[in-house]
């Protein structure tokens, strides 16, 4: 193990090398976890403001300028509320579930590269790590639903398994696309491979699939079946109160923004932006770009009604899963052909190397891949349109039939 930076300073100060290394890693871990936890306080304010504007309200505006301190007031309220554990609940699991829920999201931030010099850890298997850690969130919600000993909570937990486990499939297939293009599972390499051209231009369809399935993974509208307020009262978190309830919500708010950051890292070029490149500016680019998918996610959440469970399942298994598989196959095939023609920049070993290529070198490859994506989408959009209009005609006929029947009686 190497010992640089803070570790080196501590060692020179007379600390044991092992302890110095441990301390420097510990400080790094605390910092990386603190970033999302502090961010979420302001995210709650932003989300409430945007939701209010969309619904023609003002939103929080009493505590502090523009209601900025409202979240702190809410936090204090949640902290001093009575902490209730239902008498028939499974005490250990009931209390462990909110912690696991927040931890599952915070753990993702370990592999997010903020700038070329600031990141938690550069895992060789970063993308796989993300998928593995994200699956822990499902476990947290299931545990909460079961341990509450409440039928609505259990129903919410049942829906979680159906929803989250099925939407993981298109999510992983969409994740495969940047991994294939970069030739590495490391988040760092994926960002570096986008130095010349962002993957969103090469694989817009993969980004769309990733966005839709990550929206489902967070359990946000139109996929908010987990906590469908009008059907399950609040779903899996019905028995929770005080800060334990707050932790579930912090996890959800944070998960939405985390997905924005991941989309930025995987498809929108991470810290890269044409022109200005400096460490701290790079951090700002990442944040600004992450706000685009984040804002669209909030926009959808506040304008689209909830789908039924069978509609959600049909949409996934008959639409997203086949589409994501076709997308990966077409991309792999085209990249192979383009490599034979010589339109893909390669290194001396013959492997694909996008990291050192310039914008102009990548342009022909990007155009071909973009057109392939459009060609995949066209028949699908046409099919969707036809299915929609057929459904509508059938509905109208049924309604007319019912009216005629009623008049006949």
């Amino acid at each position, binding site marked *: 193990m190497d010992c640089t930076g803070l570790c080196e300073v501590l060692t020179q100060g007379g600390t044991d090398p*092992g302890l110095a*290394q*441990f301390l420097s890693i510990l400080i790094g871990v605390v910092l990386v976890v603190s970033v999302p936890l502090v961010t979420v306080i302001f995210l709650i304010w932003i989300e409430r403001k945007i939701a209010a504007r969309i619904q023609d309200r003002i939103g929080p505006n009493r505590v502090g300028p523009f209601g900025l301190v409202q979240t702190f007031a809410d936090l204090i309220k949640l902290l001093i509320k009575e902490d209730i554990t239902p008498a028939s609940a*499974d005490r*250990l*699991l009931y209390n462990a579930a909110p912690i696991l829920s927040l931890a599952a999201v915070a753990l993702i931030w370990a592999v997010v590269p903020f700038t070329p010099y600031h990141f938690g850890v550069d*895992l*060789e*298997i970063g993308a*796989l*790590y993300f*998928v*593995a*850690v994200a*699956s*822990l969130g*499902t*476990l947290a919600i*299931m*545990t909460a639903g*079961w341990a509450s000993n409440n039928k609505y909570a*259990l129903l919410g*937990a*049942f829906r979680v*398994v159906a929803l989250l*486990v099925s939407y993981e499939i298109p999510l992983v297939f969409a994740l495969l696309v940047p991994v294939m293009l970069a030739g590495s*599972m490391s988040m760092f390499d994926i960002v570096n491979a986008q130095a010349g051209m962002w993957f969103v231009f090469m694989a817009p369809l993969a980004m769309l699939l990733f966005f839709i399935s990550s929206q489902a993974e967070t359990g946000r509208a139109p996929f908010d079946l987990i906590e469908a307020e009008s059907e399950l009262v609040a779903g899996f978190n019905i028995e929770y109160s005080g800060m334990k309830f707050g932790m579930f919500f912090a996890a959800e708010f944070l998960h939405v923004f985390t997905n924005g950051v991941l989309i930025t890292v995987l498809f929108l070029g991470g810290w890269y932006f044409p022109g200005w490149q400096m460490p701290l500016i790079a951090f700002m680019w990442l944040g600004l770009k992450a706000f685009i998918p984040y804002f669209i996610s909030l926009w959808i959440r506040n304008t689209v009604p909830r789908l039924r469970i069978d509609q959600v399942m049909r949409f996934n298994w008959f639409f997203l899963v086949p589409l994501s598989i076709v997308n990966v196959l077409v991309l792999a095939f085209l990249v192979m052909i383009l490599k034979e023609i010589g339109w893909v920049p390669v290194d001396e070993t013959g492997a694909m190397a996008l990291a050192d290529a310039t914008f102009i070198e990548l342009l022909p490859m990007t155009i071909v891949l973009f057109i392939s994506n459009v060609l995949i989408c066209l028949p699908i959009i046409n099919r969707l349109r036809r299915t929609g209009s057929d459904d509508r005609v059938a509905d109208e006929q049924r309604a007319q039939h019912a009216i005629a029947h009623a008049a006949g009686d």
Partner: protein
Amino acid sequence: MIQFDFSTIAFFVFAVLTLGGALGVVTNRNLFRGTIWLMVSLFGVAGFYVLLSAPFLAAVQVLVYIGAIAILFTFAVMLTRSLTRLNVRYTRLWPSALGAVLLFAMLVIGVIWPVFGGNEMYSLPLSDVVRTTSDLGVALVSGEGYVLPFEVASLLLTGAMIGAIVIARDADEEELEQ
């Protein structure tokens, strides 16, 4: 002797997680809690993979065993709510218990003895076949690597799947058809 650096401490933490979780699985009367303990145990095993410089296996361990298989376990347990408060005691399985203890003793002796016996022949070095993920992929399908164990394992899984279908199949179905 054992040096007490941080990887040793990590080893003992993961050992406690793995063995404690396993103990929780077999001693718990509540099946849901049992599956949660199983996940703790599997998580400890993932930690061992990290300590053995196999992060890919660790991630797959968490993804497949905790994220998929154990979640299906909990789902099945939740559907059978009466199984969460087990009162049945199995007291007539002494031969099986004896067999399990004997097997455990053999494994302990077989694994621990060479390590403490100081026999250099058994202190195997870490495999130099697998360095990166692509090396792992090549090792699994190349004739010089582990293609035979890989195929045998897949055959075993197919057999298990067919067996599960045969067991789960309703016997009344065929009778109804006749």
